[in-house]
C-alpha cells in the first residue's frame, strides 16, 4: 500500500495550512503595529489595576494623566526625603520554637504583611 496525502488537503500553500506563510503574516509590519497598540492598552489597564505600584510609578502615571505643569513643578520643589531606622532596643525574645514559626525572634519585628496598604 502506498502512502498518499489526505483528500481534504485542498491547497497546502494557503494561509490556513502553511506554517511558513503564517509565520510571515504574523511578523508583517501592519500586524506588528496592531499588536503593539493592543498591548499598550492592555498594559495601561493592568498598571491601573495593580495595587502595589511604587510611589515613583504612581507619580509617573499622575504626571502623564492629570497633573498640570504648575502642580508638577510644586511637587518637584519639595526637598528629598530622609529615611531612618530606629535603633533596636533589647526586649524579651520569643522562644526558639515560636521564633522559627514567626520568622523573627523579636516580637517588635514581628510585623506580618497582611495584604493591606
Amino acid at each position, binding site marked *: 500500500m502506498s502512502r498518499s496525502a489526505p483528500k481534504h488537503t485542498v491547497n497546502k500553500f494557503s494561509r490556513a495550512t502553511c506554517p511558513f506563510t503564517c509565520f510571515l503574516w504574523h511578523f508583517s509590519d501592519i500586524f506588528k503595529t496592531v499588536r503593539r497598540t493592543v498591548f499598550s492598552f492592555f498594559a495601561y489597564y493592568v498598571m491601573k489595576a495593580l495595587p502595589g505600584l511604587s510611589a515613583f510609578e504612581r507619580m509617573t502615571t499622575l504626571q502623564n494623566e492629570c497633573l498640570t505643569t504648575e502642580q508638577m513643578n510644586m511637587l518637584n520643589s519639595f526637598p528629598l526625603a530622609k529615611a531612618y531606622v530606629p535603633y*533596636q532596643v533589647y526586649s524579651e525574645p520569643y522562644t526558639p520554637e515560636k521564633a522559627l514559626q514567626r520568622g523573627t525572634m*523579636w516580637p517588635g519585628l514581628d510585623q506580618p504583611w497582611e495584604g493591606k496598604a
Partner: protein
Amino acid sequence: MTQQELLNQLQQIAFYLVDLNLYMDTHPDCPQGLALYNTYATKLRELRMQYEQAYGPLLNFGNMLAKNGFDWINSPWPWEN
C-alpha cells in the same frame, strides 16, 4: 527524643542563632544578647553531638569524623522522608 524532634530543635536553634547574630552585629556589647548567644551556641553544639551520635553526620566535607564506615551515605536524604 525522636530523630525528627531532634532535627526540629536543631532547626529552631540554628535559626535563633542566625537572628541573634544579626542583632549582635549592631549590639556587640549587649549583655543579654551575649548571654543568649552563648547559651544557644552551647545548646546547638550539644544537640548536634547528640544527633550525630545517634543518627550519623549532619554535615559533610570533613566537618565531623566518619565512625561507622563512611556513614554520611547512610543518613536519609531530604527527599527520602
